[in-house]
C-alpha cells in the first residue's frame, strides 16, 4: 500500500488557485523530489500536506497511511507520522529546544498510546541526534531557534526529524541558505534516516541538494501542475536546461 496518495489536488491561498490538479503517489521507503521555478506551488504543496489552515483545499483527496489527511488537524497529521522541515523555522522565545522537543515527542507518544518519556531517557536520545547533525550541546537549553543562524535552524529541523522519526518527512527548501559544509551535514543526517519504511518528499528549487540526497523520483512542478516526472537524471537535465524547456509540454497539456 502506498504511504501517500494525492489525487487531483486543488488548493488556493487567499482565493488564488495555486495547485491545479496534483497527482502523486509515494510508497514506503521512497524519496521523491519536487522541483520547480519560483511560484510554481512547491511550498504550497508542502504546507497543504502539513495541514496549514490558511491553505484551502478546493478539490481532490490526500490519503496518508490509509487515512484521509484532509480530515486531520495539523497536530493529528504530525502524530500520525507526518513531519515537515520548515523553510523558515520560527523562533519560540523562552522555551528551550530540549523542553519543546520532549513535549512534541510526548504528545506524539500519547496519541499513539505509548508512555511519555521522562527527561532522563530523553536527553541522551536528543544528544545523540544532535551529535549526528554536529550541533553543540549548548543548543539544548537555548530557546527554540532564537538567535540561531540560518544553517543552525535548518540543522535543528533535521535534529527534530531524527528524534520524532516520522513515516513521511516533507523537507521544504531545506537547502536554501545553507553553505556547502552545512548542506553536507544536513544531507548526512537525512541520509542516515533513509530506510525501507520511511518516505521523504524533498521540495527544492536547485539540483544541488540532490547531489547529496539522491532521490528515487523527480517531479517538475510548473504553474500548479506536475508537468514531468522521472528518475534522478531528470534533475540533472533541469540543471542544464533550466525550467523553460518543460513549458511547451505544459502548453501541450492545456
Amino acid at each position, binding site marked *: 500500500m502506498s504511504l501517500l496518495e494525492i489525487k487531483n489536488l486543488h488548493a488556493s491561498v487567499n482565493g488564488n488557485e495555486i495547485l491545479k490538479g496534483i497527482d502523486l503517489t509515494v510508497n514506503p521507503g521512497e524519496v521523491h523530489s519536487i522541483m520547480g521555478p519560483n511560484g510554481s506551488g512547491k511550498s504550497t504543496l508542502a504546507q497543504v500536506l*502539513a495541514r*496549514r*489552515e*490558511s491553505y484551502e483545499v478546493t478539490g481532490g483527496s490526500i490519503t496518508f497511511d490509509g487515512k484521509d489527511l484532509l480530515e486531520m*488537524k*495539523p*497536530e493529528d*497529521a*504530525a*502524530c500520525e507520522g507526518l*513531519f*515537515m522541515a*520548515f523553510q523558515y*523555522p*520560527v*523562533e*519560540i*522565545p*523562552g*522555551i528551550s529546544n530540549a523542553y*519543546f*522537543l520532549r*513535549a*512534541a*515527542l510526548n*504528545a*506524539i507518544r500519547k*496519541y499513539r498510546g505509548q508512555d511519555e518519556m521522562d527527561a532522563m531517557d530523553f536527553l541522551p536520545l536528543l544528544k545523540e541526534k544532535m551529535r549526528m547533525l554536529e550541533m553543540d550541546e549548548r543548543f539544548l537549553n537555548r*530557546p527554540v531557534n532564537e538567535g540561531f543562524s540560518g544553517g543552525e535552524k535548518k540543522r535543528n529541523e533535521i535534529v*527534530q526529524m531524527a528524534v*520524532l522519526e516520522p513515516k513521511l518527512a516533507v523537507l521544504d527548501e531545506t537547502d536554501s541558505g545553507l553553505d556547502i559544509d552545512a548542506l553536507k551535514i544536513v544531507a548526512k543526517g537525512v541520509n542516515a534516516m533513509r530506510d525501507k519504511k520511511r518516505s521523504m518528499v524533498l521540495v527544492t528549487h536547485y539540483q544541488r541538494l540532490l547531489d547529496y540526497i539522491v532521490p528515487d523520483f523527480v517531479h517538475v512542478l510548473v504553474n500548479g501542475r506536475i508537468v514531468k516526472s522521472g528518475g534522478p537524471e531528470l534533475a540533472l537535465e533541469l540543471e542544464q536546461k533550466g525550467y523553460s524547456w518543460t513549458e511547451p509540454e505544459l502548453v501541450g497539456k492545456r
Partner: protein
Amino acid sequence: MSSTVNQINDLTQQEYKWGFVTSIDEDRLPPGLNEEIVRAIAAKKGEPEFMVEWRLKAYRHWASLEQKHAEPTWANVKYPPIDYQALSYYSAPKQKKELKSLDEVDPEILDTYSKLGIPLHEQKLLAGVAVDAVFDSVSVATTFKAKLAEVGVIFCSFSEAVKNHPELVKKYLGSVVPYTDNFFATLNSAVFSDGSFVYVPKGVRCPMELSTYFRINAQNTGQFERTLIIADEGAHVSYLEGCTAPIRDENQLHAAVVELIAHDNATIKYSTVQNWYPGDKEGKGGIYNFVTKRGKALGKNSKISWTQVETGSAITWKYPSCILQGDNSVGEFYSVALTNNYQQADTGTKMIHIGKNTKSTVVSKGISAGHGQNTYRGMVKILKGATGARNYTQCDSLLIGDKCGAHTFPYIEVKNASARMEHEASTSKIGEDQIFYLQQRGISKEEAVSMIINGFCKAVFKELPMEFAVEAQKLLSISLEGSVG
C-alpha cells in the same frame, strides 16, 4: 490570523472557577462612610486611641479629596463613577467568641478555603508554608504561628498586631505609604479592617514561606486590607499572597495597602498571584483592584523584590514600588499582567533611587487578548545623591487577536550624571506561524498557545517560588482558554 482570533474567542469561554459564594452569617456595617462608621470599625476591633486618631485623620483627608473629586484620573482605565456612600465598609463572618484554635473556625469557611486548594488544617499544609486567611475583611486563621514564634517571627492578623505589638504598628504604620499618599490609600487608611502583619527580627531567616490568602465573599462591600512587613537587620523573608472572589454582577472595590520595610542587609521577597473575579465575557461585574504597594529599602545592602502575576480583576491599578534609600540597596519588579475579554490593567512600578550605588531591575510582561487593554506605567527616578545608580528596564507586550491593546508609559527622571539606565521594550503578536510550528510537531493548539505564553513570561515565572510558579502557569492557561481558536 482569523483562525487565531477564533481560537482566542473559544478559549475565553472558560468559566471563572472560583466564583462560588459561601453562605455564612455576616456581621456588617450599614452602607456609607462618615466619622461614625470609621469609629465603629475601630470599636469593633477594640483598637487603641492612636489607631482611632490615625483612621480619623485619614478619613478627614479622604473626605476633602472626595469633595474636590480628587480620585485619580490619569490611569489609562475607564469605569463609571464609584458611589462610595453605597458601599459597606465592614463585613465579617459572624463569630461569637475569640478563636483559640483552627477547630473553632466556621466549617463553611474552612470548606471555602479547601475548595480553593488552601487547606488550613496545619497537618495538611504544604510543608514550609504558613498561611494567613483573610475572609472578607477579617483574618480568620493563621497557621504555623507557634513554630514561627520559636524563632521570633511574628506572623499574625493586623488586628492582633495592633493588640499585641502596638509599638511596632505605631512605629511603622504609614511610614512607607502615608495616609495622605493617594485617594485609595487614604480611603484604606480610614477603613481598613484587617490584613497581615509580619515582623522578622534581627538576623533571622524566616524558616518558611509566609502566605496570605484573600477572599471577598460578601456582596456590596469593599475589601480594604492592609499588610505590613518589617525585616529587621539581616533578616530574610519571602511572602506570598493569593486572591479570589465569587462571581457577582456588580463591580466590587478592593483597595489594599501593602508596606514593606527592609533594614540593613535585610531582604523581603513579595510574590502575588492575583486572580480576583475578572467579570464576564461582556465585561459585566468583576473586581476593581486599586492597590498601593510600596517597599522601603531603608538600610544599606537591603533588598526588596516584587513579583506579580495579575490575571484577574476587571480593572487593575497597581504599582508595587521601591524606595531605595540605603546605600547599595536593590529593588526588583517582575510582572506578568494578563487582560482578556474587557479587562483593563494599568500597572507597573516606581523605582526611586536615593542611596549611593542603588540598583533596580524592572521586567514587565503584558499580555492582551479579547478586548483587553494593558498598560505598563513605570517610573525610574534617580535623585541627586544616588551616585552610581543603575537601572535596567525591560518591558514586553504580547497581543493575541486584533481587538486588544497594549500601551507603555515609561517615565525616567535622572538628576545624577553617573547613573546608568537601560530600557528595552518590545511589542509582538502571537504568531499563527508559531502556533502552526508547534502543531506540526504534534502539540495541540491550546498547548501551543500556553507554551508560547509561558516562554514569553519565563523571566518572571523563574522568580516565583516553585509551587507558585506552577500555579501561575496553570492560571495563565485557564485565563486564556478559548482565547485562541
